[in-house]
């Protein structure tokens, strides 16, 4: 059986490669993300309540709602967990080799990384976006293919949800694909066939929950989702003046890499972080607790 929700929230790490990366991205969305960990802590942070027996009631209702499979929360959690393909051994080895607080991305660590081809990277970016859309609908109760509702809600994103989108733009867009990552993704997506999609390992993991019926229909849904969100993303990048250089220079305090090896940095971040799962767990817990506090 999958882990209980309180355990997933209790076990969120406070200091690993993922949290270091997310902290380094604070400059993109200043003050939006606090790494709130622990189920009880999250209840206190979300509701502002301090009475222990009241907190107990909220938590018990939240656990009940999460365990009711028809509510969709477990599907959302599974999506957030599955879309990240983290190599925990690599992440641990990288942390163990820190020099002066930073991970030197060179030598053996560098040779163990294989940068993804641009097409695979573009598909990954789109799949993460689609996961966000589907998980958002599962958590908040909007029909699973409602791109319009999602787009409206994106403008309201804050906290760890906004940080997840910031990380998506930086880690899966700007660093591996460069400043024109949106144009690149659009053209790569244009060249993608349903069978390319079927061979993509991330897609294989999550295809059962992507709307569209079959790979051709799912590719259509992915295209449609990317097409409607790219305007939001391009505005996000432009309004904050984001460039690959700005992102990398903010990451220099925990990972050392030369500027001509950005594709390796992309591969390293892809393999050593699970920022979707981490912040997705925080988002899901927040919404679940909000609902529980309203229902009891």
């Amino acid at each position, binding site marked *: 059986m999958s882990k*209980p929700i309180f355990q997933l929230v209790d076990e969120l790490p406070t200091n690993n490669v993922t949290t270091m990366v997310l902290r380094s991205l604070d400059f993109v969305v200043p003050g939006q993300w606090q790494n709130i960990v622990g189920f009880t802590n999250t209840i206190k942070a979300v509701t502002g309540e301090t009475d222990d027996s009241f907190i107990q009631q909220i938590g018990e209702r939240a656990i009940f709602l999460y365990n009711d499979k028809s509510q969709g929360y477990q599907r959302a959690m599974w999506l957030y967990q599955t879309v990240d393909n983290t190599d925990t051994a690599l992440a641990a080895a990288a942390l163990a080799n820190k020099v002066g607080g930073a991970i030197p991305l060179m030598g053996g660590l560098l040779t163990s990384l294989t940068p993804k081809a641009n097409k695979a990277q573009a598909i990954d970016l789109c799949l993460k976006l689609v996961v966000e859309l589907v998980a958002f609908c599962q958590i908040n109760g909007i029909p699973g293919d409602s791109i319009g509702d999602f787009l409206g809600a994106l403008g309201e994103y804050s906290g760890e949800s906004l940080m997840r989108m910031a990380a998506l733009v930086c880690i899966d867009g700007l660093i591996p694909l460069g400043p024109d990552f949106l144009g690149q993704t659009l053209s790569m997506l244009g060249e993608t066939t349903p069978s390319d999609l079927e061979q993509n390992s991330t897609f294989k993991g999550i295809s059962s929950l992507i709307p569209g019926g079959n790979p051709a229909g799912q590719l259509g849904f992915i295209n449609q989702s990317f097409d409607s969100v790219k305007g939001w993303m391009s505005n996000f990048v432009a309004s904050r003046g984001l460039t690959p250089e700005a992102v990398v220079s903010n990451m220099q305090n925990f990972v050392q890499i030369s500027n001509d090896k950005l594709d390796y940095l992309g591969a390293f971040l892809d393999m050593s972080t699970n920022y979707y799962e981490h912040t997705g767990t925080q988002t899901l817990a927040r919404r679940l607790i*909000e*609902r529980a506090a309203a229902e009891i």
Partner: protein
Amino acid sequence: MKSILPRWRQILASLLLSVLLLVTACAPQAPSRWDEAQKESTQKPTQVSRTAGKPVEGGKFNKFFPAGGGGYQRVYTQEKPGFAEAKLKKSGQDVAVISISDTASNPTAAQKFQQSSKKIGGYPAVSQGSNGTAVLVANRYQVKVQSRSPGFTQSDRETWLQKFDLNGLSQLR
């Protein structure tokens, strides 16, 4: 004998492996204040599902919510079976969460209103925790306002509860 010995070893080894797996799988979890709720909610049928009725669709609640106005913006956030929620924002900040839930799917939530001596908009009202106020409409629908900012007071919560179409909601079946 020769052929039996290795077989015994094989069995022994797999037995030891099973024990090891069993022990490591069950051992390290420290007890938690949430264990009981986890156990109760994963049994079939659960205590709650045995007593619960079928809730109305959350989308049916939307029309009874107050509109924004007076510097407040209302943003719908969740719509689940028997539940709808919106947040109130003022100057870009979240100041309150407003919701309607159907206690048919959570009957214990309605019990607290039995001791209520106060009415808001003609319906039994209670304060809950340090920043929640709720009324129970038609003995079934819980309408709640929770502050998310210290500036949003108990009296603000009561004012906003009365902005819901409580009488309209009381007719919902």
